[in-house]
């Protein structure tokens, strides 16, 4: 919301300097987001009037306008569509520097015609964003006057208002809060018309019919006759321009002016549209349509609330979308002489739904959905009507047609002691009371320690005691709140929900942590052969962010593709995946080299390097890890396994399926994906063995397809309980081992807990092993 300082100063005559204003607004919670310094009109631009216009020979667009700039007539070539006799506008004299043109105006020859200056559009003058015609001025701008004097610069504060402060979406609202804070007087723009609210007993020929009082609790209709629609005076145009609005005509400009000044939207209908002087508020009918002021053709919904007028054929037809935007055909036009000013209160939710349904964002809807003072319409109608009369030369009718009455807010029970209880601010009750009253609350001391506080009608956000505590603290100053540490009987558990130890271990092992997007594309999941998505976004940011990921490794594959030039890629991610349920996972990716240097042959990454990494991780958590052959769609069918961690299957690991590798433009790549948290075991110290172990090596020739796990099982079963470890130390294929066979060398270690073993005892065990192997058809290699 924009707040021009000159306008604020009009409502707050004691306005301090701009830095103080910004500091106070920030401290009040009306955060200042930016400060814009607006230039006034440029020098050497005069108010001039077009006397006559003739076509420029040889041009179908340009005309020669003879203008009077107060000193005499001169000819100027113009291309603006509204160059017509009687138009009062801005003439840039030779030498003028126009901000919107980036050039100095000069006397020029245009197709044989001498042009002594330039008639200007608002954009060329840098005043507001309209280039479709000349700046239109009214009679208030004297011929020959320097525009720079009529249209000086201003400083505009840009406020970022929170949605609860509907009351502050106006110059009045901001001024009111500042006045309460600074303790200075507020010049309410409605003061002058407080006695001109209109007499309901006087017949103005108008009638109001409200069909839905829940959504339209208040409606005031004021009649203004004998208006002359034309350009607004400079002071109105300037104020609207400083808000970033484009001035239209004096009637529309006034309704906009009052919207921003008081925060009360209104709309002016041509009285000719009101059949029998009747204005209705009703639900739209199925199939009904409306063309808005912005030329949007809307198909109305029965949930929409419309402003309507009686109609011969249809019985009633919509002329405006209540609280959002007026209709094009029945609003004030250039030939309007009598108008009906509709000033109403519409309930926030209905306006919000309607605006959203039709994808409309308007100044009116923005205010109504945040809450407009429900008691404001009579005063705002009087203010707007008086302003129209002042700038469009009309006559405000003494009568008024209205619906609804002032509403009174329920009082809030407020205990002054609660301010200190909640905020630790010691604010004397007298100061609390004064603060609440300055904000417009009515305070009644019902009991010694409890007050009945009635908030003003414009403060939608004040409903409970805590709201009032905030108000007192706001005016007292949030920054005066102290800094303490609560004594609390709470001992937090020392668990590790963010998997910090796991991440530390992986980083220690040389992996880089990545964080990918939780949303992804269905195509990426499919290319990675991950599970199909189950959670889809209703309004995604493109197809690549349309579904929730079902696995982490596709993100790592994408990262690997991005980092294709890196020779030794080692990545991991801890994150959530979304299948039938949301779960936490860990994914790892290795590609290229694992250990190496630039000048010496590196150790290439393979399945066992990845497995070793996982084993190291499992060891760190005190858990045995096993990988059992298993097939996964995204993994190489022969180089893949299920990870069993402490006896529980937690995930998969292996080489990425070559077709998936190809889809991601990758060479040999290895990935693992595991469910978190990984089972861990609390360590318990076991006695350190004092006995030496006895070692025996055995080379066993087995069929090539036999897994080491199967061989180990046979050995372990046969070796008995003295066996403490069994490890492979060589796997050999080739001569003299028979084809389709391999030789696996295993090392057995035996130990007795209490005494040294004799050779005979160990040999006896090995004999058992050898005979067990023989019974499987395996031979021992000498």
């Amino acid at each position, binding site marked *: 919301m924009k707040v021009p300082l000159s306008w604020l100063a009009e409502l707050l005559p004691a306005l301090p300097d701009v830095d103080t204003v910004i500091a106070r607004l920030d401290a009040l919670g009306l955060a200042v987001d930016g400060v814009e310094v607006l230039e006034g009109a440029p020098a050497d631009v005069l108010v001039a009037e077009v006397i006559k216009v003739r076509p420029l020979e040889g041009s179908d667009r340009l005309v020669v306008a003879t203008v009077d700039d107060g000193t005499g007539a001169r000819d100027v070539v113009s291309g603006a569509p509204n160059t017509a006799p009687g138009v009062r506008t801005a003439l840039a004299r030779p030498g003028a520097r126009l901000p919107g043109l980036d050039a100095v105006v000069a006397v020029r020859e245009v197709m044989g015609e001498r042009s002594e200056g330039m008639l200007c559009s608002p954009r060329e003058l840098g005043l507001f964003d309209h280039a479709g015609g000349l700046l239109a001025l009214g009679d208030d701008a004297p011929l020959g006057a320097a525009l720079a004097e009529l249209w000086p610069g201003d400083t505009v504060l840009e406020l970022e208002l929170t949605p609860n402060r509907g009351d502050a979406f106006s110059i009045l609202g901001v001024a009111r809060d500042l006045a309460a804070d600074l303790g200075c007087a507020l010049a309410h723009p409605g003061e002058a018309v407080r006695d001109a609210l209109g007499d309901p007993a006087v017949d103005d020929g108008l009638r109001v019919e409200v069909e839905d009082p829940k959504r339209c609790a208040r409606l005031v209709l004021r009649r203004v006759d004998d208006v002359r629609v034309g350009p607004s005076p400079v002071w109105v145009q300037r104020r609207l321009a400083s808000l970033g609005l484009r001035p239209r005509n004096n009637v529309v400009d006034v309704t906009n002016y009052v919207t921003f000044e008081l925060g009360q939207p209104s709309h002016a209908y041509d009285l000719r549209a009101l059949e029998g002087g009747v204005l209705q508020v009703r639900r739209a009918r199925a199939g009904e349509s409306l063309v808005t002021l912005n030329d949007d053709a809307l198909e109305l919904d029965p949930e929409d609330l419309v402003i309507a007028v009686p109609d011969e054929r249809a019985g009633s037809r919509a002329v405006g979308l209540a609280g959002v935007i007026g209709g094009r055909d029945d609003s004030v036009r250039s030939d309007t002489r009598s108008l009906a000013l509709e000033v109403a209160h519409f309930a926030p939710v209905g306006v919000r*739904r309607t605006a959203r349904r039709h994808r409309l964002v308007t100044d009116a809807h923005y205010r109504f959905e945040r809450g407009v003072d429900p008691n404001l319409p009579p005063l705002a109608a009087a203010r707007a009507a008086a302003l129209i009369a002042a700038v469009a030369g009309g006559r405000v009718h003494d009568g008024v047609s209205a619906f609804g009455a002032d509403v009174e807010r329920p009082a809030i029970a407020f205990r002054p002691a609660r301010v200190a209880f909640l905020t630790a601010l010691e604010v004397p009750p007298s100061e609390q009371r004064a603060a609440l009253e300055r904000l417009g609350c009515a305070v009644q001391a019902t009991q010694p320690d409890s007050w009945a506080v009635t908030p003003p009608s414009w403060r939608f956000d004040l409903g409970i005691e805590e709201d009032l505590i905030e108000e007192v603290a706001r005016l007292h100053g949030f*920054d005066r709140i102290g800094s303490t540490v609560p004594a609390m009987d709470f001992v937090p558990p020392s668990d590790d929900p963010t998997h910090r130890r796991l991440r530390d271990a992986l980083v220690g092992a040389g992996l*880089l942590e990545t964080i990918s997007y939780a949303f992804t594309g269905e195509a990426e999941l499919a290319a990675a052969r991950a599970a199909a998505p189950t959670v889809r976004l*209703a309004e995604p940011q493109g197809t690549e962010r349309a579904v929730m990921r079902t696995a982490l490794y596709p993100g790592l594959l994408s990262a690997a593709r991005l980092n294709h030039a890196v020779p030794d890629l080692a990545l991991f991610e801890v994150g959530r995946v979304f299948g039938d349920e*949301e779960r936490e996972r860990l994914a790892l990716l290795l590609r290229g080299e694992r250990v190496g240097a630039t000048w010496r042959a590196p150790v290439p990454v393979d399945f066992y390097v990845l497995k070793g990494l996982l084993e190291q991780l499992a060891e760190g958590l005190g858990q045995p890890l096993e990988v059992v052959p298993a097939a996964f769609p995204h993994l190489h069918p022969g180089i893949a396994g299920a990870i069993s961690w402490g006896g529980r299957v937690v995930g998969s690991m292996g080489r990425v399926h070559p077709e998936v590798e190809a889809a991601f433009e990758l060479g040999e790549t290895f990935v693992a994906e595991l469910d978190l948290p990984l089972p861990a075991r609390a360590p318990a110290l076991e006695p350190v063995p004092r006995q030496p172990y006895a070692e025996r090596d055995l080379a066993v020739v087995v069929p090539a397809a036999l897994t080491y796990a199967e061989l180990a099982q046979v050995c372990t079963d046969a070796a008995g309980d003295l066996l403490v470890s069994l490890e492979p130390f060589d796997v050999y294929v080739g001569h003299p081992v028979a084809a389709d066979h391999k030789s696996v060398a295993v090392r057995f270690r035996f130990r007795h807990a209490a005494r040294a073993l004799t050779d005979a005892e160990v040999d006896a065990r090995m004999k058992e092993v050898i005979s067990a192997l023989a019974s499987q058809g395996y031979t021992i290699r000498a």
Partner: protein
Amino acid sequence: MLDEALTRVRAARSPRELQEVRVAYLGRKGAVTERLKALGAMAPEARREAGRAVNELKRAIEAALAARAQELDADRVRAELESQRLDVTLPGVRTRAGAHHLLTQVTNKLLDVFRSLGYQVVVGPELEDDHHNFAALNFPEEHPARDTQDTFWTTDGRLLRTHTSPMQVRYMRQHRPPFKVVVPGKVFRNEAVDATHEAQFHQLEALVVGERVTMADMRGAIAAMATALLGASTRTRLQPTYFPFVEPGAEFAVWWTHPKTGREEWLELGGCGMVHPNVFEAVGYRGVTGFAFGFGIERLAMVTYGVSDIRDLYRGDVRVLEQFRGVA
């Protein structure tokens, strides 16, 4: 003879040569041995005299031999070690150093602070529902406050949490006060992505509830965090604002020196406030007060470590990830 013997000892270049010298003098047929043998034929008087001289000679040669043997051994060790000399200037053989993601490091740093202040760390789901993300947090239906949240809805009517605050509701329903918890996590907003805005980012949120927790306690917690991050010279600033789930509500800023510009200024971090009575009612609490505050991790990480494009944090580019080593 002694001079000649000592010269030959010194001239010996290897243990073998030295052994030859030893044999030549002290061997069974060595020159010294011959002299000793000759003593037997001498008269007792002369024999004593000559015997002493020969023994001295023998001792001197033996000493020289031993010294030379030691020298040769030292030379041998030196030569052997020299032969093992490496070019220590060649790069090492290694796995590359890993790195935590910058956001993890910043989060860890913050969690360290909160743990030291006695907070419990809790995490919660990213896929949430209207009730936990909005309704129970006092966001009325059809209220403009919901517009500020730019929600990603799912086709089945759930949503991606727009803040970590749903965990307030989940935690409070499962625990009784007093407690101090801190919630880090991923959140989502459906807003246009540019260098400073992402549809996915991280927040950290603290919630403290007890019998009599005040706004001053809240400021104290914020100040403690700021001090741990920025040093004792930092200050905090509170300015009123609105979040539906707190009342009073405020924005907080910390006074810091911008690492890039060197300027001392306010860094607006996040929002805070006293837990709204409607939130307590939604979780069934009575007779307690509490505060909550939260802020975005990305922004803090970006301004602290000079990241100019938020998207760099999510691309997984190793050239970026590697630079995160040893940040915190």
